[in-house]
Every structure is written in C-alpha cells, then in structure tokens.
C-alpha cells in the first residue's frame, strides 16, 4: 500500500544528505554483520565455538519466529517453546516412526504444527494482556505433561534420539558448519518474510491492532482473522527452528524442549533487541545467547545465569522498553537537523485559505 513515488517525492524532515548518511550507516551495519556471520566458520573457530555459533543462530531463528506475533500484534507469548518443542519432536517421530526423509520431515513437522496452532490461537487470541500470557504458559505445561507421560511414542523422560540427516562420513566439525549455514538460511528466509509483511497491507492492519485493537476494528480491519493468521505463521517458523535444532542436536528431552525458560528466552531476546525492528530479535539473541553460553562455560550448569538474565530483563524493561535498535535509531534521529520541527501554516497562508473559502460559499463561515 505504501506508494513508492510518494515516499520519494516527499522528504518529510531533515536534510536529504543527513537522511542519506543515516541510511548508509544502517545499510553498512547490516552488511558488516552479514559478512561477519558468513565468514565466521572460515576463521577456524574450532568445534566448541562453532557449536556455540549454531546455538546462537538457533536462538536468533526462534526469537525472530516469535516476533511474527509479538512484534506485529504486541501479544506477548511466553509459550512459544510449545512450538519449537513440537516441531523438534515431530521431526524425530516422522523420521523414526514413518521413515520420512529428514528434510521433508522438517517441513512436514512445521506444517503440522501450523495446523495445530489454529485451534490454539483461536482459543487464546480472544483474550488480551495477562490472560493471553497465562494461556500461553499453560500450553507449554500441557505439552510437557503429554510428552513425558506418553512414553510409548515419545520416549518419555528418557528422551528421543533423532537420527542425523548427514551420514557418518560427515565428521563433527563439518556437521557443525553445515548446520551453521542451514540456520543462517532459515534466518534469512524468516527475515525476508517479516520484512515483506511489515511493508504490506496485512502488516499495516496488524500494526494498527498493536496500537489499538478497537480503533483498528472501527476502520474495518478484520482483527481476529489477522491475529490468527500471523499467529499461525509464527508457529510455523518457530517450529522450523525447533525442528532444525533437533536435527542438529540429535537428542530431545521433554524437560528442555517444553521449558518455560526457552519461551522466556525468546521474549527476553526480542524485547532486548526491539520487537518493532526487523533485526531486533536476532540482535537480542546474539547478546543473550552469548551471555548464556558464557555463564555456562564459566560457572557450569548452575542457576547463576538465570539470575543474571532476570536482572537483564528488568533493566531492559525499565530503561529501554523499546529495545536496543529503536533506541539507537532515536539517537541517530537526533542528528537530523529538523526532525522534530513541525510545519506551521503562516498567517498569510491562513488568510489566503480563508479568502478562498469565503469566496466559495458566500460567507457561510
């Protein structure tokens, strides 16, 4: 709906050169980050650091998938681990029990999760605010119970071993590298999808819902259908992320797959980076993911990193409620010379208009 020629002709504020410089800095930052991500495996990081890279990319995929519903509608779901977990388990079960080839299983699992998310979204999107959050939490706990107790199929608490898609001739470092690039690919697909929605009529409707659902409805936006659609899209991508992780890691345990912690990570990462920006969740995932892995490596599997992350979340909510990227953007905006100046109509212009009006309708005003 955004008209390209309009945006080009009306430079709303700031001098064009400054605007161009800011654009340039933004593009440069994205290109630099992309190159960094792509060449990282070639710098010989070693298998352990490579595996940390894969984990962080997996977090980036999960958070970006979460952000389809969180970013566009403002509905905060703490229960998206239900979708990563289901995605992972379905991939494993399809391969093990139905002999489906790994990559087809990955896509098929995500499609099944998307279908399952329709009734879930139907039930939970009717309520806003805290009720929605609580329903999303309940969903994870229900999944945990099901996958723990239905052990004939899921392996229960003993876990489920997921066969690797690459043969035994592919060694561990090579495995890591391949999965690293597969995660990059998935992330790029998600970012392109998010970007496309952001610019579309669908996206405009969703953002209206995020600001004021009643107002959006009064403009004729089918709010419920829109929320449900983006919820299903989010479930699909989040399940893909969960499935890809399962193929890489090769082992699933219900406690970790359906963990409230995982869902909270997605929220924290997205909020930290900024849920309204395309790259926000991925940036947040890089920071938080790195911190988690760092704490684990330094202090072992203690609960210390949880305390640190809790503190971080508190700080973000208090001091940077919009996240890092929007705050940075605002900082850049200050550089624009007349970003906040508002064109007032001069007395002369007003007088002219008045003259036109009076002339038009014989002094009705």
């Amino acid at each position, binding site marked *: 709906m955004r008209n390209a020629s309009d*945006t080009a002709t009306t430079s709303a504020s700031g001098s064009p050169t400054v605007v161009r410089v800011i654009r340039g800095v933004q593009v440069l930052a994205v290109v630099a980050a992309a190159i960094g991500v792509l060449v990282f495996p070639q710098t010989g990081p070693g298998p352990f650091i490579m595996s940390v890279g894969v984990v962080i990319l997996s977090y980036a995929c999960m958070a970006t998938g979460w952000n389809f519903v969180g970013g566009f509608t403002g509905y905060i779901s703490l229960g998206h681990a239900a979708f990563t977990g289901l995605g992972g388990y379905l991939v494993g079960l399809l391969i093990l029990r139905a002999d489906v080839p790994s990559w087809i299983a990955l896509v098929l699992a995500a499609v099944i999760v998307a279908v399952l998310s329709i009734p879930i979204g139907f039930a939970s999107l009717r309520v806003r605010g805290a009720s929605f959050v609580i329903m999303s939490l309940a969903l994870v706990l229900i999944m945990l119970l099901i996958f723990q107790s239905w052990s004939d199929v899921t392996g229960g608490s003993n876990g489920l071993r997921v066969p690797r898609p690459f043969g035994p001739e592919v060694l561990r470092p090579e495995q890591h590298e391949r999965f690293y690039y597969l995660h990059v690919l998935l992330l790029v697909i998600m970012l392109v999808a998010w970007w496309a929605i952001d610019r579309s009529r669908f996206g405009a*409707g969703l953002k209206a819902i995020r600001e*004021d659902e009643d107002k959006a409805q009064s403009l004729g936006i089918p709010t419920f259908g829109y929320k449900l659609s983006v919820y299903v899209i989010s479930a699909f991508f989040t399940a893909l992320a969960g499935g890809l992780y399962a193929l890489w890691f090769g082992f699933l345990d219900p406690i970790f797959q359906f963990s409230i912690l995982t869902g909270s990570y997605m929220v924290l990462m997205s909020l930290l980076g900024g849920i309204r920006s395309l790259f926000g969740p991925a940036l947040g995932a890089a920071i938080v993911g790195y911190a988690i892995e760092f704490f684990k490596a330094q202090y072992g599997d203690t609960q210390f990193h949880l305390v640190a992350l809790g503190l971080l979340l508190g700080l973000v909510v208090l001091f940077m409620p919009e996240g890092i990227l929007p705050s940075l953007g605002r900082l850049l905006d200050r550089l624009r010379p007349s970003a906040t100046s508002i064109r007032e109509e001069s007395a002369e212009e007003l007088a002219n208009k008045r003259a036109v009006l009076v002339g038009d309708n014989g002094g009705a005003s």
Partner: protein
Amino acid sequence: MASDYLLELTDIEAGYGRAALVLRGLTVQVPPAQIVCLVGPNGAGKSTVLKVASGMLVPRSGRIVVDGADVTGKGPQQLLRAGLSHVLQGHSVFKEMTVGENVNLGAFSVRDPRHVAERLDFVKSLFPLVADRWDALAGALSGGQQKQVEFARSLMVDPKVVLLDEPSMGLDPKATAIIFEQVVRMRDAGTAVLLVEQNARRALESADVGLVLDLGRVHISGPARQLLDDPKLGELYLGGRPRTSATERQPS
C-alpha cells in the same frame, strides 16, 4: 433516491446496559452537502448519537436509514460500508505509524486499488498537510494536525456522511479555526457532515443546520445562523463563557 436525506435517525431510543436511556426519541436528518451541527452540554448524549449512527451502539428502538436504505441493527463494519465514517472524540490517530500509513488505513475496506489512488489524490488536495508530512510519525504532529490526518483518513472510504465528534476538543483557538475551516472544505467538496460540539457558538458559525440536544431529544432545530441570533437560546444553551472541554475524558 427514496429520501431527501443521506442520513436519518428516527425516534431513536438508546442507552448503555441497564442504565437509564440516554436518547429518548431523538430524530436527526442530514441532507446532502450540508453541515448539521448538534450542540448540547457535556453528558447530554452527543457522542451517543454518533455511536448509534456508526453502529457502535445498537439502539433499543428507532430507525437508521442511510441514503434510503434501512441499516437499523447493523454493526460498525456494515455501516462503514453503507457510507458512514466516524471520527471519534479525542485523538485517534495511530501515533506510532506514519501519516501515510494512517491515511491508507482509512481505505482498508476498499478493495479496488485504483479507487484508493483516486481517493488519495482527492484527500491530499483537500488536506495538503497530509502530502507534506506523509512520512512523519503521526504522533509527532500537533493536536490540530492529527485531527486533519483523522479527517483525511475518514474520507478515504468516500463516505456519504462523516460523523465528527468534538473535533475542536483540546485545541487552541488558532488550531480550532483551522479545523473548522477544514470541516467547511469537506462540505464544499460534497461530503455531508454530522458535527457534534460542546464549543457550540464556534461550531454553529460554520454549520448550515443547528440542533440543540437536551434530555435525550432534539429540542430546537433550524438554520444555524438563526440559532446563533436567537438571544434566549444563546443564554440558555450556548453559554456566555466557553466550557473547558479539554479535561473531559472519552467514555469507554
């Protein structure tokens, strides 16, 4: 056309929940290309009239007819399609979206992109501000400018009647003057307007037809000029001094 009016509310009785009725047998008629101004004190039920007209509140009895078609009992989406566009009381732009996105949202229910482009041209010519500030965040505009964006948004559907709820609320006199000029421009461009105002004197100066709402009914109606010139009326309803409308909060 079955009727001389674009919008007719006939014998409307309406209220909220179990509370007493707010409107008790109200009748309002809006002819084409005229500004009909409904004035009345705070809490008289002015906003309620517009909510009934736009389908946000279904009346207990009475009839709503738009351009000859009976639309009684229909919801907001259907009444929007029937040609009634409602600009709510208070500020209702989407502050975190650009002016362009706001205006385009007004055409959300319009399917034909050519029609949208036509309306956009029309709206931009009527409100140059919209074209000037197309990429600015709506929340960064002044209150009066935000109102203009709302007007522009409401015209995107090519409405038969625009319902304006206290457009001058919270604006300084200068911005108020601009806003009423814009209302007149809308009328001159062919749109009928049902305007509701507490700022009665100023609103009637711009209107064609004036109505005074009291105790849930229209008590006095006539050409706006005549109402303004009536000394008894001025004393009773138009008030010697302006009421402070800025502190009033929007219900629900």
